[in-house]
Protein backbone atom coordinates (compact mmCIF):
# COMPACT_ATOMS: atom_id res chain seq x y z
CA UNK A 1 0.00 0.00 0.00
CA UNK A 2 2.76 2.37 0.94
CA UNK A 3 4.63 1.55 -2.26
CA UNK A 4 1.61 2.07 -4.49
CA UNK A 5 0.77 5.33 -2.75
CA UNK A 6 4.34 6.47 -3.32
CA UNK A 7 4.09 5.38 -6.95
CA UNK A 8 0.88 7.34 -7.38
CA UNK A 9 2.42 10.46 -5.83
CA UNK A 10 5.52 10.09 -8.01
CA UNK A 11 3.35 9.72 -11.09
CA UNK A 12 1.38 12.83 -10.11
CA UNK A 13 4.59 14.77 -9.52
CA UNK A 14 6.05 13.73 -12.87
CA UNK A 15 2.75 14.56 -14.56
CA UNK A 16 2.73 18.00 -12.99
CA UNK A 17 6.25 18.83 -14.18
CA UNK A 18 5.81 17.50 -17.70
CA UNK A 19 2.39 19.10 -18.14
CA UNK A 20 3.85 22.48 -17.20
CA UNK A 21 6.76 22.14 -19.62
CA UNK A 22 5.75 19.70 -22.35
CA UNK A 23 9.06 20.64 -23.88
CA UNK A 24 10.36 19.09 -27.07
CA UNK A 25 14.12 18.54 -26.81
CA UNK A 26 14.52 17.77 -30.53
CA UNK A 27 12.76 20.97 -31.49
CA UNK A 28 14.85 22.77 -28.87
CA UNK A 29 18.06 21.44 -30.42
CA UNK A 30 16.95 22.50 -33.89
CA UNK A 31 16.20 26.01 -32.65
CA UNK A 32 19.52 26.17 -30.77
CA UNK A 33 21.38 25.34 -33.99
CA UNK A 34 19.45 28.05 -35.79
CA UNK A 35 19.56 30.83 -33.22
CA UNK A 36 21.72 30.29 -30.11
CA UNK A 37 24.68 28.12 -31.03
CA UNK A 38 26.85 30.83 -32.57
CA UNK A 39 27.30 32.56 -29.22
CA UNK A 40 26.30 30.07 -26.52
CA UNK A 41 27.53 26.86 -28.18
CA UNK A 42 25.57 23.73 -29.01
CA UNK A 43 26.02 22.39 -25.48
CA UNK A 44 25.60 25.82 -23.91
CA UNK A 45 29.11 25.95 -22.53
CA UNK A 46 30.64 28.74 -24.53
CA UNK A 47 34.27 29.64 -23.83
CA UNK A 48 33.53 33.32 -24.60
CA UNK A 49 33.75 35.11 -21.22
CA UNK A 50 31.10 37.74 -21.95
CA UNK A 51 28.38 35.18 -22.70
CA UNK A 52 26.95 33.08 -19.89
CA UNK A 53 27.34 29.33 -19.85
CA UNK A 54 23.91 27.74 -20.07
CA UNK A 55 24.59 23.98 -20.07
CA UNK A 56 22.81 22.33 -17.14
CA UNK A 57 21.31 25.62 -15.95
CA UNK A 58 17.85 25.50 -14.31
CA UNK A 59 15.26 25.28 -17.08
CA UNK A 60 12.76 27.58 -15.40
CA UNK A 61 15.46 30.22 -14.90
CA UNK A 62 16.44 30.00 -18.57
CA UNK A 63 12.80 30.27 -19.64
CA UNK A 64 12.25 33.28 -17.38
CA UNK A 65 15.34 35.00 -18.79
CA UNK A 66 14.05 34.49 -22.34
CA UNK A 67 10.55 35.70 -21.44
CA UNK A 68 12.05 38.78 -19.78
CA UNK A 69 14.17 39.52 -22.87
CA UNK A 70 11.10 39.07 -25.05
CA UNK A 71 8.96 41.38 -22.91
CA UNK A 72 11.74 43.95 -22.53
CA UNK A 73 11.83 43.52 -18.72
CA UNK A 74 15.46 42.49 -19.20
CA UNK A 75 17.29 44.65 -21.67
CA UNK A 76 19.97 43.47 -24.05
CA UNK A 77 19.98 44.52 -27.68
CA UNK A 78 21.13 41.15 -29.02
CA UNK A 79 19.09 38.89 -26.74
CA UNK A 80 16.04 41.14 -27.07
CA UNK A 81 16.08 40.76 -30.82
CA UNK A 82 16.49 36.98 -30.70
CA UNK A 83 13.90 36.45 -27.96
CA UNK A 84 11.34 38.62 -29.75
CA UNK A 85 11.21 36.03 -32.52
CA UNK A 86 10.65 33.08 -30.14
CA UNK A 87 7.23 31.62 -29.36
CA UNK A 88 6.42 30.53 -25.77
CA UNK A 89 6.82 26.93 -26.99
CA UNK A 90 10.24 27.74 -28.48
CA UNK A 91 11.26 29.18 -25.11
CA UNK A 92 10.19 26.03 -23.22
CA UNK A 93 11.99 23.84 -25.76
CA UNK A 94 15.22 25.86 -25.67
CA UNK A 95 15.24 26.01 -21.87
CA UNK A 96 14.69 22.26 -21.59
CA UNK A 97 17.36 21.53 -24.18
CA UNK A 98 20.11 23.60 -22.56
CA UNK A 99 19.14 22.40 -19.09
CA UNK A 100 19.60 18.82 -20.31
CA UNK A 101 23.17 19.39 -21.55
CA UNK A 102 26.21 18.29 -19.53
CA UNK A 103 26.59 20.79 -16.72
CA UNK A 104 29.72 22.83 -16.33
CA UNK A 105 27.80 24.97 -13.87
CA UNK A 106 27.71 23.78 -10.29
CA UNK A 107 26.09 24.76 -7.03
CA UNK A 108 29.02 26.05 -5.05
CA UNK A 109 29.03 25.87 -1.30
Amino acid at each position, binding site marked *: MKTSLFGLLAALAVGATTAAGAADLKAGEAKVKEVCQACHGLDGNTPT*PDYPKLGG*QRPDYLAKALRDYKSGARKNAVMGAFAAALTPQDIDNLAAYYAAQPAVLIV*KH
Partner: protein
Amino acid sequence: MKLTPLCTALALLVVPATAWCQGSLIGNPVAGEQKDQMCGGCHGIDGWRTAYPEVYGVPKIGGQHPAYIVKALQEYKSGERTHPSMRAIAASLSDQDMADLAAYYGGSGAGVASK
Protein backbone atom coordinates in the same frame (compact mmCIF):
# COMPACT_ATOMS: atom_id res chain seq x y z
CA MET B 1 56.87 63.05 -19.59
CA LYS B 2 59.00 60.37 -17.97
CA LEU B 3 55.98 58.73 -16.43
CA THR B 4 54.06 58.07 -19.63
CA PRO B 5 56.32 55.39 -21.13
CA LEU B 6 56.65 53.78 -17.72
CA CYS B 7 52.87 53.66 -17.28
CA THR B 8 52.44 52.21 -20.72
CA ALA B 9 55.02 49.53 -20.00
CA LEU B 10 53.31 48.67 -16.72
CA ALA B 11 49.91 48.55 -18.36
CA LEU B 12 51.21 46.17 -21.01
CA LEU B 13 52.48 43.88 -18.28
CA VAL B 14 49.32 44.01 -16.20
CA VAL B 15 46.64 43.74 -18.88
CA PRO B 16 47.27 40.10 -19.91
CA ALA B 17 47.12 39.00 -16.28
CA THR B 18 43.77 40.66 -15.69
CA ALA B 19 42.17 40.09 -19.06
CA TRP B 20 39.76 37.60 -17.51
CA CYS B 21 38.27 40.13 -15.11
CA GLN B 22 36.43 43.38 -15.64
CA GLY B 23 38.46 46.52 -16.02
CA SER B 24 41.66 46.59 -14.06
CA LEU B 25 40.26 44.97 -10.90
CA ILE B 26 41.73 41.65 -9.93
CA GLY B 27 39.25 39.34 -8.26
CA ASN B 28 40.46 37.49 -5.19
CA PRO B 29 38.61 34.18 -4.75
CA VAL B 30 39.55 33.91 -1.05
CA ALA B 31 38.14 37.37 -0.34
CA GLY B 32 35.13 36.43 -2.47
CA GLU B 33 34.43 33.38 -0.34
CA GLN B 34 34.47 35.60 2.73
CA LYS B 35 31.88 37.89 1.10
CA ASP B 36 29.62 34.99 0.20
CA GLN B 37 27.27 35.26 3.22
CA MET B 38 24.68 37.15 1.19
CA CYS B 39 24.87 34.74 -1.76
CA GLY B 40 25.15 31.23 -0.36
CA GLY B 41 21.70 31.24 1.27
CA CYS B 42 20.17 30.98 -2.20
CA HIS B 43 22.93 30.12 -4.68
CA GLY B 44 24.63 27.61 -2.38
CA ILE B 45 21.62 25.35 -1.83
CA ASP B 46 21.00 22.77 -4.50
CA GLY B 47 17.50 23.05 -5.91
CA TRP B 48 16.65 26.28 -4.07
CA ARG B 49 13.83 28.29 -5.63
CA THR B 50 13.01 31.97 -5.54
CA ALA B 51 9.84 32.93 -3.71
CA TYR B 52 9.22 36.46 -4.96
CA PRO B 53 8.12 38.00 -7.30
CA GLU B 54 8.18 34.85 -9.46
CA VAL B 55 8.94 31.25 -8.52
CA TYR B 56 11.76 29.57 -10.40
CA GLY B 57 15.00 27.73 -9.73
CA VAL B 58 17.80 29.96 -8.50
CA PRO B 59 20.47 29.92 -11.22
CA LYS B 60 23.62 27.92 -10.72
CA ILE B 61 26.55 30.31 -10.79
CA GLY B 62 29.45 28.04 -9.80
CA GLY B 63 31.73 27.72 -12.82
CA GLN B 64 30.14 30.65 -14.65
CA HIS B 65 32.41 33.10 -16.48
CA PRO B 66 33.68 35.72 -13.97
CA ALA B 67 33.15 38.52 -16.51
CA TYR B 68 29.50 37.55 -16.87
CA ILE B 69 28.98 37.41 -13.09
CA VAL B 70 30.42 40.93 -12.73
CA LYS B 71 28.22 42.16 -15.57
CA ALA B 72 25.11 40.65 -13.98
CA LEU B 73 25.90 42.22 -10.59
CA GLN B 74 26.53 45.61 -12.20
CA GLU B 75 23.20 45.38 -14.02
CA TYR B 76 21.40 44.59 -10.76
CA LYS B 77 23.16 47.50 -9.06
CA SER B 78 22.23 49.92 -11.84
CA GLY B 79 18.63 48.70 -11.89
CA GLU B 80 18.91 47.40 -15.43
CA ARG B 81 18.06 43.96 -14.05
CA THR B 82 15.17 44.08 -11.67
CA HIS B 83 15.06 41.12 -9.30
CA PRO B 84 14.35 42.81 -5.93
CA SER B 85 16.63 40.68 -3.71
CA MET B 86 19.50 40.80 -6.18
CA ARG B 87 19.10 44.56 -6.62
CA ALA B 88 19.27 45.11 -2.86
CA ILE B 89 22.32 42.89 -2.48
CA ALA B 90 24.18 44.25 -5.50
CA ALA B 91 23.57 47.82 -4.34
CA SER B 92 25.76 47.09 -1.32
CA LEU B 93 28.64 45.68 -3.37
CA SER B 94 31.69 47.63 -4.50
CA ASP B 95 33.41 46.91 -7.81
CA GLN B 96 36.09 45.04 -5.84
CA ASP B 97 33.42 42.96 -4.04
CA MET B 98 31.96 42.01 -7.41
CA ALA B 99 35.36 41.04 -8.81
CA ASP B 100 36.10 38.96 -5.70
CA LEU B 101 32.73 37.16 -5.78
CA ALA B 102 33.11 36.51 -9.51
CA ALA B 103 36.59 35.05 -8.92
CA TYR B 104 35.20 32.83 -6.16
CA TYR B 105 32.18 31.56 -8.09
CA GLY B 106 33.89 31.39 -11.43
CA GLY B 107 36.90 29.51 -10.14
CA SER B 108 37.13 25.80 -9.55
CA GLY B 109 36.37 24.43 -6.12
CA ALA B 110 33.97 22.48 -4.00
CA GLY B 111 30.47 22.19 -5.30
CA VAL B 112 27.89 19.73 -6.47
CA ALA B 113 27.10 19.06 -10.10
CA SER B 114 23.45 19.15 -9.07
CA LYS B 115 20.40 17.98 -10.98
